[in-house]
């Protein structure tokens, strides 16, 4: 683990990721940052349910969930005023909605440090 990475003790994080390998890895990384992974959702519906259930401080969202956009989840989070970080392998596309374009991104594959910086940044934007 990178010692330089800032940790966020007790930060309750929702992970939205459709690939199990990556989800597992991300969960590990978050734990390494002292975060508490509240849930991992692989579909939009599941993620929305988690958001509505509450109890989260922040979310890490994969942009593309089996070909479906994560936008509804981002919108729900924005409605609740919750910060989120987009984890994506795709380059930015100008056709993306503003909400997604403006959001803090972290490019896959990412290191612990860049994840930490992205989360910190997203939280500070609030």
């Amino acid at each position, binding site marked *: 683990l990178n010692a330089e990475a800032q940790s966020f003790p007790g930060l309750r994080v929702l992970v939205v990721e459709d690939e*199990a390998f990556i*989800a597992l890895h991300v969960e590990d990384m978050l734990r390494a940052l002292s975060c508490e992974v509240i849930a991992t959702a*692989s579909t939009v519906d599941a993620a929305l349910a988690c958001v509505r259930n509450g109890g989260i401080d922040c979310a890490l969202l994969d942009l593309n969930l089996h070909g479906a956009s994560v936008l509804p989840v981002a919108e729900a989070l924005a409605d609740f005023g919750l910060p989120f970080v987009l984890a994506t*392998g795709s380059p930015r596309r100008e056709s993306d909605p503003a909400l997604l374009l403006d959001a803090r991104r972290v490019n896959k594959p990412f290191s612990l440090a860049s994840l930490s910086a992205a989360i910190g940044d997203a939280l500070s934007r609030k």
Partner: protein
Amino acid sequence: VLHEEPRRDETAQAPRPVPVVALGASAGGIEALGQFFDAMPPDSGMAFVAVLHLDPTHESQLAHILSQRTAMPVLEIEDGMEIERNRVYVIAPNASLEVRDGHLRLSEPQVPRGQRRPVDVLFASLAEERQERAIAIVLSGTGNNGTHGLKVVKGAGGCALVQDPRTARFDGMPRSAIDAGLADYVLDACAMPEVLMRLSRHGYFTDPDSIAGDEAAPGTGIEPIITLLRTREGRDFRQYKRGTLARRIHRRMGLKSIDAIEEYVELLRAEPVEAAALARDLTITVTGFLRDPEAWEALVARVLAPLAAERDDGAPVRMWVAGCATGEEAYTLAMLMTEQADTAGKAFDLKIFATDSQAESLGIAREGVYPEAALEALGAERRQRFFTKLDGTYEVQKALRELVVFAPHDLLRDPPFSRLDVVTCRNLMIYLQPEAQKRSIRLMHFALREGGALFLGSAESVGHHEELFEPLSTKWRVFRRLGPTRHDIIDFPVLGSTRRPPAPDGPARHDLPQARQATPADLVRRTLSERFAPASVLVDRQGRAIYFHGATGDFLEPPRGEPTRDVAAMARDGLGARLRGALRRAAGATEPVTFTARIRQGASRREVLVTIAPVEPGPKPARDADRLLLVSFQPAAAPQADMPASEPEAAIADDRLMEEELRSTRAELRITIEQMESANEELKAANEEVTSMNEELQSTNEELETSKEELQSFNEELHTINSQLQYKVRELQETTDDLDNLLSGSDLATLFLDIDLCITWFSPKSRDLLDLLPSDVGRPAGSFARKVDDPELLVDAGKVLNTLAPRDAEVRSQDGRWFLRRIQPYRTHDSRIAGVVITFTDITERKAAADAVDEARVFAESIIGTLRQPLLVLDGELRVESANPAFEEAFNLRPEDTLGRLVFDLDTGAWDIPELRQLLLDILPRNSELNAFAISHRFEGRGLRHLLLNARRLPRRGERPGQILLAIEDITDRVEAQDLREVLIHELSHRVKNTLATVQAIASHSAHQARSLDDFQASFNGRLQALSRAHDLLVEAGWTGSDIGELAHRTLDAYGVGERVTLDGPPVTLRPQAGVAMVMILHELATNAAKYGALSGAEGHVSVMWRRAEGPGGEQLHLDWTETAGPRVEKPSRRGFGTLLVERLASNDLHGEASIDYDPTGLRCTLKLPWSANIGPGPNNEVET
């Protein structure tokens, strides 16, 4: 007489103004002007202004024409031009020209065309501007334009030249001017310049101011002329103002080119004509109807209206117009009084005496014919009522004419009329010396009845005689007579008369002595003279008795025979001879002559003292001829009965003898006289005859005159008609020329055939088609060899004659050219059919062009048909003209579905596309072509189609909007491929990154779990290979989906499928994601089995079975992994990463669940996966939508 004192410009004009010659002309004027300018030297120092009647609608060529005849510059007048020497100015069309302050002024004519008198206008303005210096010339022309203007010129003292009517092409204008007595010179146009040059050098024109207006030394040297006029012409100008007279005399001298007065006097003596002309010029008159209308209004209001109101119906009204000139004023007065009488509802015995000293003027007045222009001031109503319209002139109607009595009368010489109600004497006295003016005023007073009115000119007044008149209108000079008639203030100038005017055709002249009433002084004088004065006889110089006073019977007795006034013949015996001698003596003496005589009466004798005293008839010494003698008889003593002895008998006998002789001589004389008288009688009779013959001749002459006038007017009409005909002929000639040129010059072969189909005319071009010679006119058309293949020609011509409908045919000539042969009926102007007209129009080129067009059309249609791209041809209204097969194929439409339909209606409205509307209705009309216009549209049944349109608007064809070509390219496939590519690239990036992340995760976890580096390498490589295999499968399947059996087979092949591994289940295609997850699950399970489970030993067996099953949330895919015959299974103390991975893959990636059962006989894993989320026909392209 409305004598007008010319206004004098007192300001000295320096430098001397340019002499201006105004030329007025009308018909025939251009010729006369040309002659005039031919003879005019170009450096005369004069300026010439020419006015013609120009057509107001045409540009004038006058300046151009005249500039060919003179070296002087000829200018068409523009408003405001300054007049310069040696220049010719010509009027512009439709303009009124005046001279003002040395400049030419143009203005819009005020009167309608036809009533304009531009020459009068110019002359009048010139007269006002230049006074004596004005020179006006009247040239050829009809009508009387210019006459009035000349009158003004002459009134101002100017000079008038008139073209000789004999040389004028039209003599109306010159004759009118001459008849009005206004011409100073009557000359040919070419002779005028010489006179003008002479005039321009004369002092009268160069410096008139030096002559005129010098009242201090009036008329130096003109006295002999006044005397001469009085004696020769009987015209007394002694009372006229000397200045005016001097100016006018000098004017005559100017005209005669005489500088010295003495020379002119000589001329007057030598030429009576000149004396008459001078007398006429001295009384130039300017008058007019209703001149100064406001003054007349004042007269009507103050005098005529009250008069009409007061005077009884039918009572006499007497008026006198003194100085009536040409009668306008008299008629004006008559009209106004008549109107007033009508207003008052009365009829008066109106008598207006109009007098003038000018017999010529009176002649015009009596005639009562005036030009239309003169009557303008009267207005239409009066014109209608009082005048009869003649040709261009107006004649006073009889009723009005009879109210006015014209008579010659000299105010200064002849006794006035009396008991008048109104006297008008306007602008006459201004010419008179003050003393004459005063006398005139007194005369007017005498002439008027008590309370009668006097009407003077605006510049005149009653002078010092305020006691005689009171003003009724000071401004307009209307006065009323005051007081009783006063004889004492007038002295009739009877005795100064040298000529008794003939009695007027009005009332008899007053018998003056009787008109007087006896005054007391007269009474005393008469009584005294009767009582105490000797018997006397007043005789004239010839001894004729004029007046007998007292008892003259003792001395005189009527002689025998004819009555006589000879006083010597009346004398009694003994007195006669001596009286005759004494009278002779007394006539020459100034002192009385006295003698005594002895009268024998029977036997008695009486001495008588006879005194003959000269008597002065007037206050001044009279000329000898006017002197009278008073013969007084005084008895010297009482009559003697006997002869005194002292009387010698011899002397008496002598006396007797002499008287006897005298008596016989007288008797002889008497016989001679009687004979003479009878001869005289005969002469009288002869004279009567001559007179009557003369009258007959005169009436014949008048008839001839009338006939001549008729002929003249007839001639004029003929002249007009002739010129019209000539014009027509010229027009016809031109039309004929035009037609000839048109027919001959055109390429049209034209033939005229008559009813019998014989040739009447053919155009030269026809000879290309028929073997014709000019001499063939008149021969039948069928008899000529034709060079054209037209067997139906004559048959068609016959049909046209029958049906009257034109016939066309296309025929070919022998040299291969094509002609349109048209036969039409030949219609005359009265719609009669006189044959046929055949025309051959060469249409070879037109035909060739039509063929070319046809070819081009076929070519274009072939191209359109060949094109693979759908193409529509639309007409200007966006209806389909044609659609190519590619279109019909591509959009599945038949020709009958497209042709003639509006493009938006095609395929039941499928083509009603907003972008297409915009393209066709909005964009294309502004641009002729448009390329690659992309539209997307969802067609019913065909889904979204992407179309690329190319459009061209063809040029307009005549009135119709041009066609539109619309090429349609269906690029739906291309667009979709493009979209897919983009998706794939995105997906690729996504997958690569995700794969890398997955690799990262795999590496991370493998490292976590590895007990050694080899271990890590083995597990990492195995997982990576599995992942790689999964991707291979996906790629092989085109990334659309993979069969579950195939996946399992590949994944597990290394473990001996068919031997130790059994696969069983229906074909199920997994989605790509699901496929990858499934491969990874099978890999983890297989790795685990090879490490710890059934595949670790030599005996074990794995069964993989899948099926479709009903689950709680719908259809599911169930997959069972069952290991058998392997080592005994124990539940691990710690959950391994493999298990976790399987569970997470099932839940996370496959949205299902995995359950692992550690059955001691063999590990069992069951996957329950939702069917719909994982199973599909293929890849779903709709990413992120």
